[in-house]
């Protein structure tokens, strides 16, 4: 088997919530022991409800925030202990696209300067800049004319294209896209999803695609990981996972999505209650208070990750 381009082992991130400097901090386990392997050219979707740690996972991989525990291997090399300088070199190959297209472009800079920033940061020779700029801006469906404008002159969809172009400037291998279409209208969302797929082919990209929208993830991903309260509950090939979800949470999640067809109504599994607070998670399986198939053991013991029917799953139902 080939080595995964990106491998995550036992990744944990704790946030200390401190309200005063004498106070004992409370900890939020935003990411709590996640293992993940991503192979070159794949699109791995990460889904889960708000606050389950999707963004934290993405940021930890790029070490925009320092993980508390665990290792991250990029092309087989451990990058979780690299110093700042070396990390900068790694970032050349891993880039990020953010959710909010209105907030991620500096309003005071022209598009040209925004797109040039990665080139400057990574000391790409000056003479290559223009050709790179032109090629990339056109690849995302804009033209060189747009380079001299400012972000506020663009619509949300166009800004997201610029954000994607920025991530592409260094021709990275991996792109971590944190909810890149969530802020967009349906018709624009479709444009961006198509663009991402085209670019993947063109530049041979590997995507880590974070979203809370199941249908979007289903559309774009090869593999899907479902997170719940900082832990992975199910991970597998898209077809299998969507076709026959095994984990009760995945099942509930899938059945909750409203379908735009009055005749295609299904039996819905409505979950009880709200997502528990991540600073005070329940014992045992974290999902058990809301689970419709809860066993006694679930209350006390956290289920380990197992391989079941060609996918990874953490649930006592499948022993």
């Amino acid at each position, binding site marked *: 088997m080939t080595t995964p381009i990106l491998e995550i082992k036992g990744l944990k991130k704790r946030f200390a919530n401190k309200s005063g400097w004498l106070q004992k901090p409370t900890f939020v386990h935003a990411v709590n022991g996640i293992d993940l392997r991503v192979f070159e050219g794949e699109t791995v979707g990460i889904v889960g409800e708000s606050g389950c740690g999707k963004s934290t996972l993405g940021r930890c991989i790029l070490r925009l925030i320092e993980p508390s525990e665990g290792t991250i291997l990029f092309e087989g090399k451990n990058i979780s202990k690299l110093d700042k300088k070396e990390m900068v070199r790694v970032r*050349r190959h891993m*880039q990020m696209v953010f959710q909010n297209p209105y*907030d991620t472009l500096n309003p005071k800079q022209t598009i040209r300067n925004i797109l040039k*920033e*990665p080139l400057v*940061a990574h000391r790409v020779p000056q003479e290559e800049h223009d050709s790179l700029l032109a090629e990339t801006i056109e690849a995302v469906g804009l033209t060189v004319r747009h380079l001299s*404008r*400012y972000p506020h002159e663009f619509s949300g969809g166009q800004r997201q294209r610029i954000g994607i172009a920025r991530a592409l400037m260094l021709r990275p291998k991996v792109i971590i896209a944190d909810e890149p279409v969530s802020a967009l209208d349906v018709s624009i969302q479709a444009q961006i999803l198509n663009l991402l797929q085209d670019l993947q082919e063109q530049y041979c990209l590997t995507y880590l695609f974070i979203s809370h929208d199941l249908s979007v993830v289903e559309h774009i991903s090869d593999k899907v990981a479902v997170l719940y309260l900082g832990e992975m509950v199910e991970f597998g090939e898209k077809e299998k996972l969507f076709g026959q979800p095994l984990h009760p949470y995945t099942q509930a999640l899938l059945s909750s999505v409203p379908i735009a067809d009055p005749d295609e109504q299904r039996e819905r599994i409505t979950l009880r209650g709200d997502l528990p607070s991540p600073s005070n998670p329940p014992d045992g399986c974290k999902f058990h208070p809301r689970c419709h198939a809860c066993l006694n053991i679930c209350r006390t013991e956290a289920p380990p990750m197992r391989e079941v029917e060609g996918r990874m799953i953490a649930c006592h139902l499948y022993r």
Partner: protein
Amino acid sequence: MSFTGKIVPAKAASLRTPTFARFGKLMANRKARISLLFIGMILLIGIVGPWIAPYDPAQADYSAFLQEPSAEHLLGTDSIGRDMLSRMLYGTRVTLTVAVMSVGITFVLGTAIGVTSAYVGGWIDNVLMRIMDMLLALPGIILALAIVAVLGPSQTNAMIAVGISSIPSFSRLVRGAALSVKTSGYVEASRSIGSSGRWIILFQIIPNIMNVLIVYTTLFIGAAILDTSALGFIGLGAQPPTPEWGTMLNEGKEYLLDGWWLATFPGLAITIVVFLVNMLGDALRDWFDPKAQTKSRA
């Protein structure tokens, strides 16, 4: 089918930079127009004052003490017979210089402290802010008094005192603004790219808090004029015979009962200038108001 979206014919397409574009809008603001016009006039007086002054502002006329405003001395004479109008005209330059220089001190140090504190964070932030807290605990005028007591009263020292004493509040405001920029998406994006801290401070943070800086600086100029004159009022500002308005007001307060014009003109002048500067600050604030910028749909 290509994924090319039709480019929205951007409204602002004809405008080269947003700053230019919005300068027009600034001038559309009545407050801005009025305040800029009058401030311009006052600056002009500050520049040409010495040439249009009818008398030497330091020249005492032993035969014309404490004369009411008259045709000869439009604003009267002071207690040792100096022409008030001339002193007021010269004073414009002095007062404005003192105010602008002291705010300059505040601006440079306050911005440095505020931005560093916000961007670096951690214990440096903690230490800097505790020091600012400590200085904030003293009324600015006491701080200024203390500084003047150490350095001795003079125009320069008043300037330094006023400048330093407003650093704590200025740097806190700057820090607040810088913090909100620091958590913005584009700073995170910049970090994700691998840009250096210096780059981020210079090209991401500073340009985006510039509007806040400009507004605060303007408002602090108003406050600086008041503070300087307050120092002058308790005799610790610019020293006679320098015709600084606060110092003149201080001299004038000795003659409140029988030389009303001595305190009235400097008092009025200070009020008017501060009023105009604050008005400009307000107008700038309106102009920079984030709501006036592209609506963010976070």
